[in-house]
C-alpha cells in the first residue's frame, strides 16, 4: 500500500511537472513576475535592495507555488481526468501529495533563481543557509497546500484564480514584503499575523541576515502548521466531494 502510494506520488509529480509546470509560458511568467518587481524597486531605491530581497524571494515562492497549483485540481476535475487518479490504486492523501509536490518543486526552482540572482549581484555573505533552506521548504509546502485547498474548494478555473488572488495580494502588501510590519498600523499588523507569507518573509530575512537557526524557529513552526492545516482541509474537502 505504502509502496503503491509512493510510486503514485512520484509519477503524478512527474506528469504534472511535464504537462503543467515546466512549460514555456509558466516558466517565463515565473521569471518575469519577480524580475518586474526587482527592477521597479531597484530603479526607485537601488541602495535598499538587500533589505528587500528576502521578501521578494518569499513572494516568488508564493506565486510560483500557487499560480498553477490553485488551478490544477479544478482543471482536471473539469476535464474529468482527475477521475483517472481516483480510479487508480492510490490513496487520496497520496494523490493530493503528488499534486502539492508539483507546486512545491516549481515554486522552489523559481525562488532559487531569484536567490541565485541575489547571490550574484548583492552577495550572500553571512547567510544562514540552513535557515534559508528550511524556509524555502516549509514556505513551498505551506503555499502549495494553500493552492491545493483553493483548487478543491471551487468548481471553475476562473473561480480558483479569483480566490487565489484574493488571498495572495493582501499577503503581498501586508506580509512585510515591501513595508516592514513595524510600519503598519496596529489593526493591519493583527491581520498580517494571520498570513503565512508574513512568517515566510520573516524567516527568510533572519536566514539572509545570518541569524542563528533558532531565531527563525517560531516562524518555521507556524509555516508547518499552515502546511498541515491547508493540506488537511484540502484532503477533507476532496473526500467530501467523493461522498
Amino acid at each position: 500500500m505504502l509502496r503503491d502510494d509512493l510510486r503514485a506520488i512520484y509519477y503524478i509529480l512527474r506528469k504534472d511537472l511535464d504537462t503543467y509546470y515546466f512549460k514555456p509560458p509558466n516558466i517565463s511568467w515565473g521569471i518575469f513576475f519577480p524580475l518586474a518587481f526587482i527592477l521597479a524597486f531597484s530603479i526607485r531605491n537601488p541602495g535598499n535592495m538587500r533589505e528587500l530581497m528576502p521578501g521578494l524571494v518569499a513572494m516568488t515562492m508564493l506565486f510560483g507555488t500557487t499560480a498553477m497549483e490553485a488551478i490544477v485540481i479544478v482543471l482536471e476535475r473539469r476535464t474529468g481526468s482527475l477521475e483517472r487518479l481516483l480510479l487508480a490504486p492510490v490513496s487520496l492523501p497520496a494523490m493530493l501529495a503528488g499534486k502539492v509536490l508539483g507546486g512545491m518543486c516549481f515554486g522552489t526552482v523559481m525562488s532559487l533563481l531569484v536567490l541565485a540572482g541575489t547571490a550574484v549581484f548583492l552577495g550572500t555573505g553571512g547567510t544562514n543557509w540552513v535557515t534559508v533552506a528550511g524556509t524555502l521548504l516549509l514556505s513551498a509546502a505551506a503555499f502549495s497546500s494553500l493552492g491545493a485547498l483553493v483548487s478543491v474548494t471551487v468548481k471553475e478555473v476562473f473561480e480558483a484564480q479569483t480566490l487565489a488572488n484574493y488571498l495572495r495580494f493582501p499577503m503581498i502588501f501586508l506580509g512585510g514584503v515591501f513595508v516592514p510590519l513595524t510600519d503598519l498600523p496596529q489593526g493591519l499588523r493583527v491581520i498580517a499575523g494571520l498570513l503565512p507569507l508574513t512568517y515566510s518573509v520573516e524567516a527568510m530575512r533572519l536566514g539572509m541576515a545570518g541569524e542563528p537557526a533558532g531565531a527563525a524557529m517560531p516562524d518555521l513552526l507556524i509555516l508547518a502548521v499552515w502546511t498541515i492545516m491547508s493540506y488537511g482541509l484540502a484532503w477533507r474537502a476532496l473526500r467530501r466531494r467523493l461522498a
Partner: protein
Amino acid sequence: MVDRMRDAIALRGLTKHYGELRAVDGISLDVREGEVFGFLGPNGAGKTTTIRMLTGLTRPTAGHAEVLGYDLAHELSSIKKRTGVVPESSNLYAELTALGNLLFAAQLYGVPRRERIARCEELLDRFGLSQKRDASFAKLSRGMKRALTVAAALVHRPSLLFLDEPTTGLDVMAARRLRAMLANLRDQGVTIFLTTHYLEEAERLCDRIALIVQGQLVALDTVDGLRGMVANEPAVEVVIDQGRGHTETRRFLGGDVGSAMEEALAQTEPIRRRILSVSSARPTLEEVFVQLTGLSAEVMLREKGGQGRLNAKG
C-alpha cells in the same frame, strides 16, 4: 462470501441516496466471472451511480458489495488493482500523447518497468492506434479517443472491466470496432460490466442483462430468459411491400396470426401496399424492455441524442 470461481460482483441491497433522491435503491445481483453483463436503463436510472460505487468514486449509502471477492467497503485498493474502468466520457490527459497516456496509466497501476513500453505498444497496435502513438490525446478523433480510453483501462490486465455507455457518440464504424474489441476481451476471459441504453447493442453483446429503472432492479436474466418473461404474448412479424424494391417490417405483439393479418390489412389497404410475408417472431429486447419497465424504448434513445439505433447496427 462471494464464490470466487463464479461471481465477479455480488451486490446485496446496494443503495445510494442524494438527499431525498434514491439514485440506487437496494439493488441485489450477482455478475458471474467471464460473462458480459449488461446494465440497462434510461438516463437517471442509476447505472452510472452503480458503477461509481463499485469503482470507489462514490460511497454507498447502504448495502454490501463484493467485487472479485473483495469487500468494497474495506478492500477498495485490492479491487482497484484488478479492475479497469471506461467512464462515459473519454477522460485521458489532453496534453499527453497516446503513448504517454498509456504509460502514465501503466505507472499508476504498477505495471513493471521492463514490461511497460511493450504492453503499451501492444495495446496501441491492438486498438489500431500505432500510427497515432505520438499524437496528443486532444488531437485524436472521437472514436480514437474512445479506443485509447478502453486501452488505458486494460493496461494492467484487469480481470473485470467496467464500461459506462462505451459507444455513445461514436459513429457506426467506430462503434462496430469497439464491440468487436469487447467480444475479443470476453473470449480472453475478462468479465465485462457494461451499461448502455442501446438495446440492440446489449442484445448482441451481453450474456445476461439487468434492467434498472428509477434505481430499482426490474428484471435480470439472459436475453432469451427475458424474452421468456413476456413469451405469453407472441409476436407476429409482417413484411409489407413499400414499392420500388423497399420493404417495411412491422411487428405486432400479443396477438395471433389472424389478428395480425387483419391489423396489417387495415393498415396497408388504404395505401395500397402488398403484404409479402407473415411470420411468428420472438419479442425483441426492445419489446421486452417496454413490457417489463412500462417505459417507451424511445425514452432511452431520445435522452442520448437519438442515435442509438444507428450506432447499434453492425
